[in-house]
């Protein structure tokens, strides 16, 4: 414990000395650095801050130093996060490579794959997207059709993937592809890394109800993929994907707190948009909904901490399995509550009649509907809890 205290002091001091003042301000979406061939820094300070963190190994502090990390423990990594939050330090880089593929490669990748991809991720050289869902596959990931045929030293990949986040700006995609068409659903699937510069890869953006196009559909037209890009064993991609899903769900359940937009939180919004009398919100209905939400988030927050403490203590509980469900449902409830609090100012879409933060809040509300769908719908989460935690009998495959 004393070591951790010392470490915290070191972190605090280093951040104080190395994080430029401009990188301690709230960030707009367009100021984020996502790396890759299309990535650019919003300012020289942003570049400086990224490079310092990269050189320190703190982009991915828990990764081995050999791949650009700093060999730190989970507790130490958490301290870095906490100390960054204290000074409102911006995240120097964002990306699915860092959050999802990296941890999976550390577990399942070959030495060559680690060498090739991990440091490139930490250095911001490659930006990754995920190719799991297909048009029509929805929650039923195992039903996927995109196929990779063995043609000797290469696979020939044909098919398409949907919900590929910002695929039009990415360099690489990690995909689930069917390698054995005769095997039963979850068998016969492999995990493949594909360079999006390869001939035959193309993307089209999908417009969402929020008015934005964060997602694409990505098409593969007889794309040649070297066999060395297979992660894990042939036909056993499901295991890799499952390990990776855990990271995705964790991410989804935490995503709200990292929101880069100028979005209000309910408690603050209440002070701006609701009438108070004698220190109390006059509107009883909204006051009741607000306290329900605050209590729920209090409980969710404590449960986040609990899962962390349990991990350290080596205790297994059901808590991690509920986080995606409760976290994303709470985020959706938060958006709905914000709109209710803001009244007719909560439904602005564009133009000067609304402030930027009002419009951002409304649009984030529209986006919030994706949270209980992407990365495993709430229904799937409940199925999983029923099966894996409660061990209830399974009737058929649903």
């Amino acid at each position, binding site marked *: 414990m004393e070591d951790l205290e010392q470490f915290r002091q070191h972190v605090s001091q280093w951040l104080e000395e190395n994080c430029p003042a401009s990188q301690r301000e709230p960030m707009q979406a367009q100021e984020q650095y996502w790396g890759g061939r299309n990535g650019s820094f919003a300012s020289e300070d942003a570049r400086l801050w990224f490079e310092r963190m990269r050189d320190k190994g703190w982009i991915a502090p828990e990764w081995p130093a050999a791949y650009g990390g700093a060999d730190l423990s989970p507790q130490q990594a958490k301290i870095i996060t906490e100390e960054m939050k204290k000074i409102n330090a911006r995240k120097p880089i964002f990306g699915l490579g860092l959050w999802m593929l990296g941890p999976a490669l550390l577990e399942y990748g070959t030495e060559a794959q680690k060498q090739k991809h991990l440091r490139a991720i930490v250095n911001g050289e490659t930006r990754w997207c995920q190719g799991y869902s297909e048009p029509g596959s929805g929650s039923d990931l195992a039903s996927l059709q995109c196929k990779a045929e063995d043609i000797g030293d290469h696979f020939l990949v044909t098919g398409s993937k949907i919900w590929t986040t910002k695929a039009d700006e990415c360099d690489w995609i990690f995909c689930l592809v069917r390698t054995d068409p005769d095997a039963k659903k979850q068998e016969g699937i492999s995990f493949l890394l594909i360079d999006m510069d390869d001939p035959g890869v193309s993307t089209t953006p999908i417009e969402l109800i929020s008015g934005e196009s964060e997602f694409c559909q990505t098409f593969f037209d007889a794309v040649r993929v070297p066999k060395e890009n297979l992660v894990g064993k042939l036909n056993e991609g499901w295991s890799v994907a499952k390990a990776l899903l855990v990271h995705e769900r964790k991410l989804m359940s935490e995503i709200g707190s990292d929101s880069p937009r100028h979005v209000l939180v309910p408690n603050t919004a209440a002070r701006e948009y609701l009438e108070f009398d004698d220190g109390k919100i006059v509107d009883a209905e909204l006051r009741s909904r607000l306290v329900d939400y605050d209590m729920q988030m209090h409980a969710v927050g404590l449960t986040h901490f609990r899962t962390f403490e349990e991990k350290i203590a080596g205790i297994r509980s059901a808590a991690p399995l509920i986080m995606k469900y409760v976290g994303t449902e709470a985020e959706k409830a938060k958006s709905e509550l914000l709109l209710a609090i803001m009244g*007719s100012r909560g439904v602005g879409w564009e133009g000067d009649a609304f402030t930027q933060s009002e419009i951002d809040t409304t649009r984030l509300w529209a986006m919030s509907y994706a949270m209980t769908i992407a990365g495993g719908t709430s229904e799937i989460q409940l199925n999983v809890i029923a099966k894996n935690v409660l061990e209830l009998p399974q009737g058929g495959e649903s």
Partner: protein
Amino acid sequence: MSLVLNEEQRFLQDTARSFFSENAPVEALRKLRDSKDATGYSTQLWQAMAQMGWAGIILPEDYGGADFGFTGLGVVLEESGRTLAASPLFASAVLGASALLLAGNDAQKQALLPAIASGELTLALALEETHHHRPTHIATTAGETANGYVINGKKCFVLDGHSADKLLVVARVSGDTNDTEGLSLFLVDRSADGVSVERTFMADSRNAANIAFEDVHIDSADLLGENGKAWTFLEALLDRGRIAIAAEMMGYALECFERTVQYLKEREQFGALIGSFQALQHRAAHMQSEIELCRSVMLQALSAVDETPEQLPLLASLAKARLNDLVTLTTNEAVQMHGGIGVTDALEIGFFLKRARVAIQILGDTGFHKDRYARLCGY
């Protein structure tokens, strides 16, 4: 019997359903949105609706109206809600026409109602001054002048406020900001000197505006009802509006729900139609129950306007509160049950979702009407 439609009303329902699906499908709203249409609705559509008699649907035949009563109006509004048809139906044919019926003198009715019934003249109610519905919170003033009044103040969330020919402005002639006494209702030309209109672009791609009045002079003939006594009819006017918007919302709920049930019958996951999953079945069945309850509430509330106006306050608050909750439930479930495709702009569910959130704010959210219902019940 007020809780079933009669034959005439059922015929009207069929007619309206065909009309809106042919002339104003959801696709039409998408086009208005994408083209940033200046009027915000199709004037051609409105002319066609007027020819069907719907611009004057609640007006007596003497004024060129169709005299279908509020139940007939509810039928048309519900069908217009099913396709999210953008038109001045609510702002002009409901609020505008009702204001004149409730408060206008003979001369005013003679002068304006025929033009409303023919669709030539459109009105908009300029009431709200804050972002939550507070009908007595009126700071806009109307000072008396030699031959009329001068109006100063700011209004927001004025539905159709940027396109209506005339504005019905609620202003204060005496009393404090939250008093019910001292309110008056005035007719003001949108193009009058001192009126400045800012169109607002909202999530529902429909039409509303913020309007400022700066030394706007109007004639004393443009006062509706007794000076300072507008509250005596304003509540009835608002209750009609609440029931009418609730009827339109019923259309959103039904359409979203039916599309979702259809999707449950078509979509396969894990080798089965998702509609066979019991958890989704129960949620759908629960929605059906809520719809049935709301159906009864709406029929009673609409008929009460014409038959038992003394029940209006309670029924209007019941209808608006229940429909607020129903559209929230059905639109949220529609997106969730459609899964990934539900959050794409290509699917029309998103249009219902966004329109529902705006409609909830029109003339009172759920908390407003629960509080009012409780007060009416004496607690």
